[in-house]
């Protein structure tokens, strides 16, 4: 399987790079550093034009890594066997679960991923047929422009060219803004560790992908509910399934456009709001919401000293005039 992303496109994205890395991932990191550097200059010293243009050029045109991988979850095919949970637990060497993976009593409550389980399956009532509940696998959706990455003040997150959003605990100081920022509420924190707490979440088996394998959950899925592949191909597949079975599916690919698109996508037989998906999210990446504010920062840094300095000068000017008038009055008084 060829897992190398389109090199020409990446080259274009990081054009002007002087210190190219050896792999595509390295290049992305360098690209971020250049963006980060220009932004740092703008934010800290207020070199207005270089900074804002740098930010705008680097991120406005970035519509995600071409040829990145993803997973399509077909909720109509999932039977709630939790094989994916088990495979994930083993692949990531996570601690043993509180209840075994064949215990269906876990479905009695709605669960979210934790630091011990990067993916969980929840059960929802099927409005079409009550005897056939709908199961939904929850994990990190690996956004094309992730809010966790946007929120992180230390760049602990990386959007890899292969698709997964990865996290580096060596850079994290534990502010947990990424947890607040994530529109899906995915990052879990190791609150019980005093010395080495870290964020834990699905990695989309990044190391396995780099070895040419597919994610552990998709490999383990016995029903074909999880399809691993290139995001572009998954979109075509999802559209085809919806077109071929218009009665079976709702006409929506969740993750195609939500918060700018995600690498993990879903198709389902009932509207997504009935399955606990957040459906109030903007179509554009969340970084767009803060771009205007951050763009104004260098302007304030540049203009404020001049503006308030002028006000101060005006005040001093008036004081000087008052002083002159006073001494002139005094002189006249002496003359009289």
């Amino acid at each position, binding site marked *: 399987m060829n897992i190398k992303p389109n090199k020409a496109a990446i080259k274009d994205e990081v054009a002007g790079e002087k210190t190219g890395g050896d792999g595509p991932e390295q290049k992305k990191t360098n690209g971020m550093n250049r*963006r*980060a*550097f*220009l*932004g740092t200059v*703008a*934010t*800290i010293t207020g070199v207005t034009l270089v900074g804002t243009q740098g930010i705008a050029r680097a991120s406005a045109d970035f519509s995600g890594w071409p040829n990145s991988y993803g997973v399509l979850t077909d909720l109509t095919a999932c039977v709630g066997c939790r094989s994916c949970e088990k495979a994930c637990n083993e692949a990531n060497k996570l601690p043993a679960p509180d209840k075994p993976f064949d215990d269906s009593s876990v479905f009695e409550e*709605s669960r*979210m991923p*934790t630091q011990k389980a990067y993916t969980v399956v929840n059960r929802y009532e099927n409005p079409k047929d009550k005897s056939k509940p709908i199961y939904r696998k929850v994990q990190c959706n690996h956004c094309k422009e992730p*809010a966790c*990455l*946007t*929120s*992180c*003040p*230390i*760049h*602990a997150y990386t959007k890899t060219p292969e698709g997964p959003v990865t996290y580096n605990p060596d*850079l*994290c*100081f*534990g*502010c*947990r*803004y990424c*947890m*607040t*920022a994530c*529109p899906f*509420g995915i*990052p*879990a*924190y*190791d*609150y*019980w*560790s*005093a*010395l080495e*707490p870290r964020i834990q979440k699905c990695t989309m088996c990044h190391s396995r992908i780099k070895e040419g394998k597919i994610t552990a959950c998709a490999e383990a899925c016995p029903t074909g509910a999880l399809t691993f592949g290139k995001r572009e191909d998954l979109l075509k597949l999802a559209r085809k399934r919806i077109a071929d079975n218009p009665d079976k599916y709702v006409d929506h690919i969740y993750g195609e456009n939500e918060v700018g698109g995600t690498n993990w996508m879903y198709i389902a037989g009932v509207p997504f709001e009935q399955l606990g998906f957040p459906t*109030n*999210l*903007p179509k554009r990446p*969340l970084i767009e*919401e*803060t771009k*205007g*504010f*951050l763009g104004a*920062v260098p302007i*304030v*840094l540049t203009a*404020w*000293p001049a503006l*308030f300095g002028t*006000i*101060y000068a005006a*005040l001093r000017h008036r004081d000087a005039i008052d002083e002159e008038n006073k001494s002139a009055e005094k002189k006249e008084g002496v003359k009289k």
Partner: protein
Amino acid sequence: MNTDIVMKRTEASPVDFRSWFMGKLLMNMTWPDYFRSLLTPFNIVAAIILSVGLPILALRFYYGLAFATHASNEYPWGLYLGWGLFGGVPLSATGFIMATAYYIFGFKRYHPLLRLGVLTGFLGYLFAVIYLLVDLGRPWRIYYPMMIGFGTQSVLFLVAWHVATYLTVQFVEFSPAILEWLKSQRVRKWAVMLTIGMTIAGIILSTLHQSALGAMYLLVPGKLHPLWYSSYLPVFFLSSSVYAALAMVIMVSTLAARFLKKRCDSEFLESLPKLTLGLGQGAAVGMYVYFVFKIIGIAHDDNWHYLNTPYGYWFLIELVGFVLVPALLFTYGVKKQSVGVVRFAGFYAVFGIIFNRINVSIIALNWQLPEHLHHIIPPWKEAAVVLAIATIHVLIFRWILNRMPVLHAHPDYRETH
């Protein structure tokens, strides 16, 4: 006379320095007298609060955050940031507002309140950082955004840089008071020369990070209730910090004049009623501006229909009950020249600001999650730690007011203002 003091200091032997320094710390009392002076009902209550809160704080660093927080993935931030950072920072705008009013806009009559404002601001930021250190998973990495990784696309990166820089700026701004207390004239001269530069730096940094605290929530359109979420969030946070600062100065000066009267000089006490009315007038204007901004915010996103929902009622309690009503009270107090009414409105407005910031950071966030209102009740240990840190804040504030020339001008420097 000034040279005399310098001579004395340089010639002093180590023993003299020690007695001089202990005299500073104990306010020229002997140890037994000093301890006796500490036995007050307020201090006994403070001691009880600290004896509960500080051990919990220590255990939080031993067992991890789970010991004194919800440890919830859905609710990563609780009272430490909601109260300490988001609530504390707008109330600490006092330094930048008072310095700007005095040095840049020329409100020279407010001189007696200038240092009090700067001190309130400095301590407010210091404690905001302390609350942050309590909340950070790895607080010893606090310098990482400055040296290790530059996440310039993050609003929090900007907040980190600006709060760190501004804390330094405020320390320099307050340092003349410390240096007068320590009778270090030459260094004081240097510090005073920096004043205008520091004031303008303070305006820039405050404009940006007060608004940035609001901008942090721009990332969560899916989680924050539409009545609180707005593209105007940075404007809301900045404009409300202006009146928050004025109300805070009213509150702190009222408490100081009431409980530390012997530290206040006659200039402070005599001018305070008139200055309080002036501050009240400014606060009223600020609140009306903020009120209109909030209305524009609802209109901009056409969120009127949310007003007739439970969260809408809560929003109206905040906007009418804690913005419009105190604003009207300020106006009434100023019109009737009633210092008492203005002071009451000041306390009221301070409470209103905290109410707003808690709403944004805790109550209106994640409002769609099941059993949301149940989840946001803080665990008692978290509340105990917050109470202990707030108590230390008050004690340090009082410690400084008792010693340094803040509520009174230092006799050696009375003429230099």
